[in-house]
C-alpha cells in the first residue's frame, strides 16, 4: 500500500532522516517505535507532504506521491493524525468534523458523520461544545474522527496515546485495532507505548538517530528486554 524507498529529509540544512526504507502492507497495522528525537514524526510528515522529501521516493497504491500536496493526499485517501491531540480548539466538535470532511458532498458527509457518532457516541453528546474544553481522551477521539470522516484507506498516526492514562491507552489501541479490522484501513502508527503497540501491530520498525534500526515481526522483540533496551538507547 505504502512503500518508502531510501528517503532522506530534514529541516533547513539539518538532515534528520537517512536512507529510510519502510513499507505499510495493505490491511495491516505497521508501527514505528524509537527514542525521542529520532525522527519518527519527521518520517510521517515527509510521507504526508507536510515537509519536503530531499531524496528517495514515497509510493502509494503503486504511484509515486513524493512531495505531493497534503490536499491531494487527503483526496486520495490518506489521513494524518499529528502528535499531541491536535484539534481546532476554538471550534466546536461538529465544526472540527466538518473541516475534516471539507471536500465531501453534503449527502455523503451526513452518512460519514453518522458513522463517526456511532464509533464515538461521547462526541455526539458534545457536538455543539467548544473542542478546546474536551478532555485529552476526547480530543484524541475527535482528532481520529476528523481523520476518519474521509474514509481514508491509509491512516498515519503520530503517538495517539501521548498524555493519556494507561486505561485510555488500551482504549485507543482497541479503537485502532477496530478501525483496522472492521473498516480495513491500513495503519502506520508512531508510538512510544511500546508494549501496547506491539500487541496490536503486524510489523514493527524502529528508528534510531534517523536510521532504521530494526524491522520485523513484533513477536520477536516483544519479550526480548535486551533488544528493546538496545533499540531505545
Amino acid at each position, binding site marked *: 500500500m505504502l512503500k518508502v524507498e531510501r528517503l532522506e529529509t530534514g529541516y533547513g540544512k539539518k538532515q534528520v532522516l537517512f536512507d529510510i526504507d519502510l513499507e505499510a502492507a495493505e490491511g495491516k497495522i505497521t508501527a514505528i517505535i524509537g527514542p525521542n528525537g529520532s525522527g519518527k514524526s519527521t518520517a510521517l510528515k515527509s510521507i504526508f507532504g507536510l515537509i519536503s522529501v530531499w531524496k528517495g521516493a514515497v509510493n502509494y497504491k503503486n504511484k509515486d506521491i513524493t512531495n505531493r500536496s*497534503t490536499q491531494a493526499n487527503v483526496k486520495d485517501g490518506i489521513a494524518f493524525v499529528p502528535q499531541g491531540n491536535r484539534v481546532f480548539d476554538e471550534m466546536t466538535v461538529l465544526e472540527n468534523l466538518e*473541516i475534516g470532511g471539507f471536500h465531501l458532498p453534503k449527502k455523503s458527509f451526513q452518512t460519514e458523520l453518522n458513522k463517526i457518532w456511532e464509533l464515538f457516541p461521547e462526541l455526539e453528546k458534545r457536538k455543539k461544545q467548544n473542542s478546546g474544553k474536551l478532555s485529552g481522551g476526547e480530543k484524541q477521539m475527535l482528532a481520529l474522527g476528523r481523520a476518519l470522516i474521509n474514509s481514508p484507506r491509509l491512516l498515519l498516526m503520530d503517538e495517539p496515546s501521548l498524555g493519556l492514562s494507561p486505561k485510555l491507552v488500551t482504549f485507543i489501541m482497541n479503537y485502532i485495532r477496530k478501525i483496522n479490522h472492521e473498516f480495513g484501513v491500513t495503519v502506520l502508527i508512531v508510538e512510544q507505548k511500546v508494549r501496547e503497540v506491539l500487541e496490536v501491530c503486524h510489523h514493527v520498525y524502529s528508528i534510531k538517530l534517523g536510521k532504521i534500526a530494526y524491522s520485523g515481526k513484533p513477536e520477536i522483540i516483544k519479550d526480548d528486554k535486551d533488544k528493546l533496551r538496545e533499540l531505545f538507547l
Partner: protein
Amino acid sequence: MLAQVLLNGLIAGSTYALIGISFGLIYMPTRFFHFAHGVVYAAGAYGTLAAISWLNLPLSIAVLVGVGTSTVIGLTIECTVYRALRRRSASSLVFLLTSLGLYIVLQNSISLFFGDYIQSIRIGAVEEGIDILGARITPAQILIVSMSLALTVAVTILLKRTKMGRAIRAVANDAELADISGINRDKVFFRTFAIGSALAGVAGILVAFDSDFCPTMGINALMMGVVAVIIGGVGSIHGIALGALLIGMAQQFGVWKIGSQWQNAIAFVILLIFLLFRPQGFLGKKVKKVTV
C-alpha cells in the same frame, strides 16, 4: 450638545468598524500586518471618483467601479507578492516591510494620477441633515452607520454559518492542522483578500461621501482600524465593532472636552491600556503558538 457628541462618536466608530473588520478578516488567517490595506481602502474612494469625473458614470455604477478597484488591487497584491513570499517561507518582518513598501508605492501612484489636493464626492445636493433629538446627521452618515451595522452582521454570519467561513476560522485557529485536513490555504487567503478588500473599498467610498479626502486617507483610517482590532480581539467581529465604537466615542468626547488635536492620542492611550491590562482584547482568545 451631548446628543451630538454621542452621534458623532457613533459615526466615527462606524467608519473605524468598517475598516477594522475588513483588516481583521484578512489578519485572522494570514497573521501579518497588511499595511497596503490602507491603499486598498483609498482605492475605493479614488476608483469611484475616477468613474464619476473621468468616465461620467452614474453614481451607482461608479460605486461598483470603486469596490472593484479595491478588490482587484487587494487580490493582485495577495496573488503576486504575498504568495511568492509564502513560498519562500519569508519571516513576518519581511512581510511587514514588503507591505509597507507596497503602501508607499501605491499611495504615491494615487498622488501621481489624481494630485495631492483634497477631493470630494458629492451625493446629491449639500443637505442640512436630519434632526434627531437636537443632533444632526446627514444622509451619508446614516448610510455609514447602517452599512457598518449590516456588514458586521453579514461578516459574522459568513464566518459562523458558511463553509468558507469555517475554512477561514480553521486556518486562523491552526494553519498546519488545516493543511493536514486538506484545506487549500491559498484558496482561503484568496477569498479573505477578496472579501476584506471589497469591504475596505466600501469603507473608503462611504467616508468619501461624508468628508473630503486626499491620497493619505488610508493611513489614519488603517491605524484606527488596527487599534479597533487589537482592542476588540483578533477573530471576534463583534469585538472589533465594539472596539471601534469605544474609540469613536472616546475621541468625540475628547474633541468636546479637550480639543480636536487629541483625537489620535486618545485612540493610542486606549490601545495602550488594553495592551497592558487585557492584551487579548474584549472578546478575543489568548494568542498561542503551535507546531507539530
